[in-house]
């Protein structure tokens, strides 16, 4: 190896671990009882095992669905495609759902990508920063004339809603409880799932009906209460809209999903 600077040595060693590159061999001292191959093998094996273990920790249900061998094949392919750029190994695996959805070997089993999405969201909710939720009293304190311009700020633990076509959550629950396996099933109607953490440090999830899912998404994108009411016309009669929309907000506060109510922009 012509360049033997510290950086060149580190690049060669790294490529040995990630790609099996052999240039580093000429820069290592071996001994009769402990060959260069065995020495480097300890590092290359540990590199993969550590990352496979990290994926197994994050995705126990995907692991169960695929079995040991199948999960090992998935983890290996993922590690080759997306080496870790994370400080904490706990964050490694963030793109597994997309990887599963796009990869020829797994994309024909869309349940796997859904399960990965769900498990990563559970972890996201668990790891998110602390927060102080508002109580429903905050909603009662909003003067009637400010309701139209009311916007919500949601808890940092609230994850992107998951849209599922399969019974992924039921399967996850069965796997998590180690109860009898249930068969994967395509749902008659797609479901939207909300995942977050409450102030008792418990991870929560529940499914939403289509109108609540739409309202939640719109409010997460910064739309105000008047816009939500307009949009709900898609599903509801005029006379039921305001009560239904207010009911959503009430429920979100009960669920500890809201950290602030903003009404400032449209004050009369």
């Amino acid at each position, binding site marked *: 190896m012509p360049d033997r600077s510290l950086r060149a040595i580190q690049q060669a060693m*790294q490529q040995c671990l990630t790609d099996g590159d052999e240039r580093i061999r000429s820069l290592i001292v071996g001994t009769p009882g402990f060959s260069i191959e065995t020495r480097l093998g300890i590092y290359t094996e540990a590199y993969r095992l550590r990352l496979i273990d990290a994926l197994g920790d994050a995705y126990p249900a995907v692991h169960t669905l695929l079995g040991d061998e199948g999960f090992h094949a998935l983890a290996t392919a993922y590690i080759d495609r997306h080496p870790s750029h994370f400080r904490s190994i706990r964050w490694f695996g963030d793109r597994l759902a997309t990887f599963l959805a796009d990869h020829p070997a797994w994309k024909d089993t869309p349940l796997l990508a859904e399960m990965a999405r769900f498990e990563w969201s559970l972890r996201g909710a668990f790891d998110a920063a602390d*927060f102080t939720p508002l109580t429903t009293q905050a909603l009662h304190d909003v003067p009637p004339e400010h309701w139209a311009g009311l916007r919500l700020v949601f808890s940092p633990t609230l994850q992107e809603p998951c849209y599922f076509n399969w019974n992924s959550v039921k399967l996850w629950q069965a796997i998590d409880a180690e109860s009898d396996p249930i068969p994967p099933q395509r749902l008659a109607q797609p479901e939207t799932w909300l995942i977050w953490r409450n102030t008792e440090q418990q991870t929560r999830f529940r499914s939403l009906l289509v109108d609540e899912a739409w309202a939640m998404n719109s409010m997460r994108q910064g739309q105000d209460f008047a816009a939500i009411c307009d949009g709900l016309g898609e599903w509801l009669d005029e006379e039921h809209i305001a009560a239904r929309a207010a009911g959503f907000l009430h429920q979100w506060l009960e669920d500890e999903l809201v950290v602030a109510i903003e009404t400032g922009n449209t004050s009369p």
Partner: protein
Amino acid sequence: MPSLPSLGYGLGLRKEHYHAILETEPNVDWFEILSENYLVAGGKPRFFLERIRERYPLVMHGVSLSIGGTDPLDRDYLKQIKALADTIEPHWISDHLCWTGVEGINLHDLLPLPYTEEAIRHIVDRVKQVQDFLGRRILLENVSSYITYTDSQMSEWEFLGAICEQADCLILLDINNIHVSALNHDFAAIDYLEGVPVERVQQFHLAGHSDYTNYAVDTHDADIVQPVWDLYEKAVERFGNVSTMIERDDNILPLETLLNELDQARRIGGETIHSELNSHA
């Protein structure tokens, strides 16, 4: 003698023990936390950390500094470490004398360095930057290793000593890692101990490893073996009453079992210091 007073006998804080620690308040003098597990301000880890901190002294131990790496120092990481230190006020902050990846990749391993003058200059400069930023001296820990680079010009202890002298930083001496590396690189562990500057050693780690026929692998997942206890005794003779802790990273045992192992460290440490005092009386 170390520059800060000894904290006594500690354990690595592991999430498996959170409840047992708070419920039983075990006889542990202090805990070492893995900094990376607490960088996000919130969630369960910080919830438990806050409560444990009310009862026990803490020190911070990191794995991501990559002080020997050739990518630029990660300023965001340092800011997070500083913010955590400002919140939990650890007695000290440590990381490893190693590199962890280049070109933005983290190999999540503590990789050995070539022991060269080039590496010393590079690392001394980085340690100074880190210490300036954190406003305190850091401790560097010796890692277990399985390879020696052909370019190395000196022993590991000469390398470690030179960096700490030139950068004015401190040492976290992992007794198990010395034992493992001595087997793998065919040097005498005692030579390592005798080559380390006494006044720089601030903390000891004790841990277990896996033995193979011609080499050993540091796994930090097993009981401490007799040769490591023997080496620890020698270390206490040389370095005195240094803060000692048991670091178990995998195959986490019930707290009670680790407390028994910690008692053994206490016994060896206490008896050795006692006999040293007597021999000097």
